[in-house]
């Protein structure tokens, strides 16, 4: 009997495994204990993170290793970089990736560059967990998909799971990696259940996964857009169109071979990204297809993305903003003409 868990529980399991298996792992961020650790007042644990992803950690591992921080992202991310440089393996939580606006320097100019600037004589085994994406009616400052920023910075790695099993395995791999990794948690998937293996396992960084096999068109997606692509593929199947869905899982390193392989198979690529179109992952993947896969292309590469606007609040507006399976399917129909 397979276990069905929501992504938030899979992440929680990964953190338990990581903390239990390595004494240098610490967890820090806003509300990660959330006021727990006050046994004298009968409060052993409390929030355990805004989504509950860190629930129970303080009870299991203590306040020294599970730390509530001030609402001070630049300060605690900077400290996490310093701790990573000196023997710890911190897992810092940037509650929403939108907050990168007040805390980018530790990632941009420190974590990403220290190893290089120091001639390879340092490692920064830092993991930054951060929630990304729209869908929770959280509006413009709590819904962005800014993984294109971290992906664009040499020295950082950026990963984004599309299902609970990958979330657990990718997070464990990220924590145990010797480079700084930004681990994106698509917030619209946090409470969606999926099968999650027991125990300790890792999903390697830089390896895409085929989410559905097909022969007529390739849908390249990641994070919350994998479900969108799968739904589009299901709709297209009813029309006799066989769509393959590639889940990137890792944006940097990027599994170029897997992208080019599916392109070679179908000759047609649609990239689905819930971020705006400019300077984004969809454009990057499209450029790769044209640069390195031109001879396999049998038509233009299409991108299905959000518009070049902030994320709106009202449900009708937010639903219009996010790519949908209908838009993806319509795009494919247009390509197959």
């Amino acid at each position, binding site marked *: 009997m397979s276990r069905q868990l929501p992504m938030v529980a899979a992440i929680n399991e990964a953190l338990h495994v990581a903390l239990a298996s390595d004494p*240098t792992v*610490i967890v820090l961020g806003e509300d990660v204990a959330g006021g727990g650790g006050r046994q004298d007042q009968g409060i052993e644990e409390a929030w355990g993170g805004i989504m509950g992803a860190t629930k129970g950690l303080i009870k299991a591992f203590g306040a*020294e*290793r599970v*730390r509530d*921080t*001030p609402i*001070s992202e*630049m*300060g*605690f*991310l*900077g*400290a*996490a*970089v*310093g*701790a*990573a*440089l*000196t*023997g*710890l393996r*911190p897992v810092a939580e940037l509650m929403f990736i939108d907050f990168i606006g*007040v805390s980018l*320097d*530790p990632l941009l*100019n*420190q974590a990403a560059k*220290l*190893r*290089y*600037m*120091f*001639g*390879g*004589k*340092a*490692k920064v*085994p830092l993991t930054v967990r951060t929630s990304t994406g729209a869908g929770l009616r959280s509006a413009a400052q709590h819904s962005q998909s800014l993984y294109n920023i971290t992906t664009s910075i*040499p*020295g950082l*790695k950026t990963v984004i799971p599309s299902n609970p099993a990958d979330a657990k395995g990718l997070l464990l791999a990220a924590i145990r*990696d*010797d*480079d700084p990794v930004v681990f994106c948690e698509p917030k619209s998937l946090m409470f969606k259940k999926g099968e999650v293996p027991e125990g300790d396992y890792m999903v390697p960084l*830089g390896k895409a996964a085929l989410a559905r096999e097909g022969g007529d068109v390739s849908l390249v997606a990641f994070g919350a857009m994998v479900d969108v692509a799968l739904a589009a593929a299901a709709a297209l199947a009813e029309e006799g169109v066989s769509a393959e869905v590639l889940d990137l899982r890792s944006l*940097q*390193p*990027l599994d*170029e071979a897997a992208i080019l392989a599916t392109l070679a198979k179908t000759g047609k690529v649609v990239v689905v990204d819930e971020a705006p179109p400019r300077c984004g992952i969809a454009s990057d993947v499209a450029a790769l297809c044209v640069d390195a896969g031109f001879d396999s292309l049998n038509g233009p590469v299409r991108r299905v993305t959000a518009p070049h606007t902030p994320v709106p609040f009202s449900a009708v507006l937010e639903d219009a903003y996010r790519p949908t399976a209908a838009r993806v399917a319509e795009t494919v129909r247009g390509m197959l003409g």
Partner: protein
Amino acid sequence: MTLSTEQLMDCYRRMRRIRTFEEKLAELVGSGRLAGFLHLYAGEEAVAVGVCEHLGGRDYVASTHRGHGHAIAKGVDVAGMMAELFGRATGTCKGKGGSMHIADLDKGMLGANGIVGAGIPLATGAALSAQVRKTGGVAVAFFGDGASNQGQFHEALNLAAVWKLPALFVVENNGYGEATPMEFVTPVRDIAVRATSYGIPGVIADGMDFFDVYAKAGEAIDRARRGDGPTLLECKTYRYFGHYVGDPLTYRTKEEAEAWREKDAIRHFEERTVRDGVMEPGNLRRIDAEVAAEVEAAVTAAEQAPLPSAESVLTDVYASETRR
């Protein structure tokens, strides 16, 4: 805390090494033998050495764009530093860092830093690391008066204070942030008062007096090692060469610079220790000569050292080498 003659000799040697190194760099840039954008530490030697004399192998320092002095005080090899400044493969950072990124993790030197204020949270994190790993180590952040207006300063002090981290925050108040006088941009005269907001001690030292810095840093570091939390130590000092080599120094008067040179830390160290009979001028001159020879040899070696291969631009980005 009394220093043995041997320790005093060593402190003098490191201060002299910093001064000679920096003066040599000014000369090399002036004569066109060395290119680059250098911020010299000369004038502030008593601060780096007075603090680092309390530190050992388990302790860390995080530095600034004006970082050569901290690196030398923490024991980083000057030949490697010189080679780095010449962009050589034999440099401390294999030619990838340059002046503003000299680091040596083996020596607990977490790097000079090109971003004003960015070393402060790094040291805070190193202190967190020492606390969690229970090494007994402390971490020192050196930074300037300008950095104390950065958010990173305030966020890091708050964090270090609330977690009682074994950290020391040393502000080297040299009166200027680049060309702008401190009073134009900072509404308090003493940066040490900012400690009050974080419930930690704020202490002022004469940054031109090695013994004052040594004593006050010692108290703060003992406090940090005891688990009583961080201290903000403000050292009033002066940068002889201005912001960078080539600075036209149009923003300060000659009289001001001369008045600070009158308080020169190295000369005062010598006068005091000779007067007290713990040092002999002959020994100090011998050290001067040894240091001069050492720096000269570093320059010769650096000029003759191999350049990095162009291919090495691609390496050292990731611990697990990954192409893209």
